[in-house]
């Protein structure tokens, strides 16, 4: 038994090593004093200082985060409303149609979504840039939010809705005071999923960025085509750290929500407020 267990651990370990080795490799070389990925020339932070003096890349970082934040916020609002609507549909056929439409958007290839948005914006004569990227990101984030919120609604005790009505609440009071607080962990999960999807989306963004505007993933791609500079390693390392912090942040608030205002978890929160 114990031998089997060790074998399992070994397998799990090797899978994780395989998964994280490229990232580790990339991170290590971001500290290389040399300019290429071959050969270690000593430790240096010069690629980081290059990165921070590159105003273009910093601007792009800011706008990428702005897009991610705005699109995930708006998608959370629209997606939650949509989930509430689907949840309240009485007709099962209509309900299933809506759910299927939602899921198709989730599984359909990004390239197709990106291309279709490009066609749409061009046909409408809509200028490509910040707004077009934002709209596209909101659009592909909505189904993610719906998918995260709907199960919360379904496992919510039906009689709390009945109770709210019974106690005299109108629809809005019922939603804002009872339903939203109860499903908030789902909304939060949807928001973070949408945020990370938006941060690292390449395919859709690639189609709808115009000449002037670009996001990090598109920028990294275009730079990598001209030969990888280690500045990109530095940037990727920073992105990786941010992702880690995001995961940590999500973990902290979601456990706090589960533990329902228990004081002990609050102490952990300040550590992640550096975000």
């Amino acid at each position: 038994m114990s031998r089997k267990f060790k074998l399992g651990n070994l397998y799990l370990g090797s899978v994780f090593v395989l998964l994280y080795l490229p990232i580790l490799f990339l991170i290590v070389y971001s500290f290389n004093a040399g300019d290429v990925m071959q050969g270690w020339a000593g430790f240096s932070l010069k690629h980081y200082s290059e990165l921070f003096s590159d105003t273009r890349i910093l601007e792009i970082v800011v706008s990428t985060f702005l897009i991610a934040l705005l699109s995930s916020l708006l998608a959370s609002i629209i997606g939650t409303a949509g989930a509430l609507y689907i949840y309240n549909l009485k007709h099962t056929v209509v309900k299933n149609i809506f759910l299927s439409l939602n899921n198709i958007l989730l599984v359909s290839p990004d390239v197709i979504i990106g291309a279709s948005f490009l066609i749409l914006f061009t046909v409408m004569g809509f200028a490509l840039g910040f707004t077009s990227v934002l709209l596209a990101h909101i659009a592909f984030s909505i189904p993610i939010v719906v998918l995260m919120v709907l199960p919360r609604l379904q496992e919510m005790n039906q009689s709390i809705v009945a109770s709210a009505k019974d106690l005299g609440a109108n629809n809005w009071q019922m939603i804002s005071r009872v339903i939203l607080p109860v499903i908030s962990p789902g909304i939060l999960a949807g928001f973070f999923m949408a945020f990370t999807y938006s941060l690292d989306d390449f395919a859709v963004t690639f189609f709808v960025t115009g000449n002037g505007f670009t996001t990090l993933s598109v920028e990294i791609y275009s730079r990598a085509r001209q030969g990888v500079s280690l500045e990109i390693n530095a940037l990727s390392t920073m992105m990786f750290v941010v992702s880690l912090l995001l995961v940590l942040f999500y973990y902290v608030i979601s456990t706090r929500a589960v533990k329902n205002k228990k004081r002990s978890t609050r102490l952990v929160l300040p550590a992640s407020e550096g975000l």
Partner: protein
Amino acid sequence: MQPVKLCAFLVTIDLLIKSEGWELTNISTPIIEFKNVGLSYGDDEVLKNIDLELEAGKFYTLLGPSGSGKTTILNLISGQLTVTHGDILFEGNIINDVPVEKRHMNTVFQDYGLFPNMTVFENVAFGPSIKGMSKKDIKTKVTEMLTLVKLNQYADREITELSGGQRQRVAIARALANDPEVLLLDEPLSALDYKLRKEMQYELREIQQRLGITFVFVTHDQEEALAMSDWIFVMNDGVIQQNGSPEDIYDEPINHFVADFIGESNILDGIMKTDYLVHFTGKDFENVDAGMRPNERVEIVLRPEDLDLTAIENGKLIVTIADQSFRGDYYEITAIDDDGNEWQVQATNKSKIDERVGLTFDPEDIHIMRFNESENDFDARLESYEGEEDAEK
């Protein structure tokens, strides 16, 4: 002196008439009334032509097995469901289309429906705050309600930190905080253990009496219904089988279903030979029922606690003890008579299995049920011969 007295008398009469007139309209208008109410889902008729009247300030129970339509009636009163046909009236006004949140009644749900994101205080404060009461008034109201259900120490607790019984109390306090004229309770005690249930029965009754508002209580537990109610509606198959005081329903069940559902019963087939003479198990017995056709086929109900075991020579019937079990305050005995009928008897003394003993009962313990007798006919018949009896005396 005399004219003064007369004058005072006349004034008093006058006042009485005036106040009587005022009160009459109040008393005679039921707080809730169902007129020929039916509810169907497609071809499935859940409720069939229900007529009922509820007076203000009483404790009503809708009693029946699951699927009998009792919760459906409650949901129609609260407004969660709408009628397929017929009218529901509140203080004389039709409320068929009044939405849930506009009705002057509140519900205690079976699974309580407490808001998990709020504390005990916030749960109870929900209704008053929706109404737009001031913070100070809300605090007074919530404190009052939590004191009523003996939970004032628990105001700041989370719902998840409460036991089942405490959640129950929060649900009651929350519903009462809205000052409803009618409180609807949907099997609220079914999730509690036996002892707690007994306690809550007593407390609910006390709360109802103290507040003086109408309670409509739904349960499948006949003991609960008998212990708490002023008036019981026994339901089955979407029809009110019988309504009456707990004593009426227990002592004079209208049909086989009610006799079987409420309490333990020995139910036998028999023939009502003439008034006050009934024939069953091959013998004639004197009884106290009348008003049926000669030689009408009927059912006979004898409650186990009305039967006594005695010496063979004193018995009206001779039975053989088949089984007995100890129930704490009595022995539950199963005995078989010579016709093969099974008798449930509650006896204070232990018996011997296979022993032959006499079975005895009083004429007034024999209750007769006619087949398919409507509640109106049943009431009229009881009244007719009970009146006769009084006249004879």
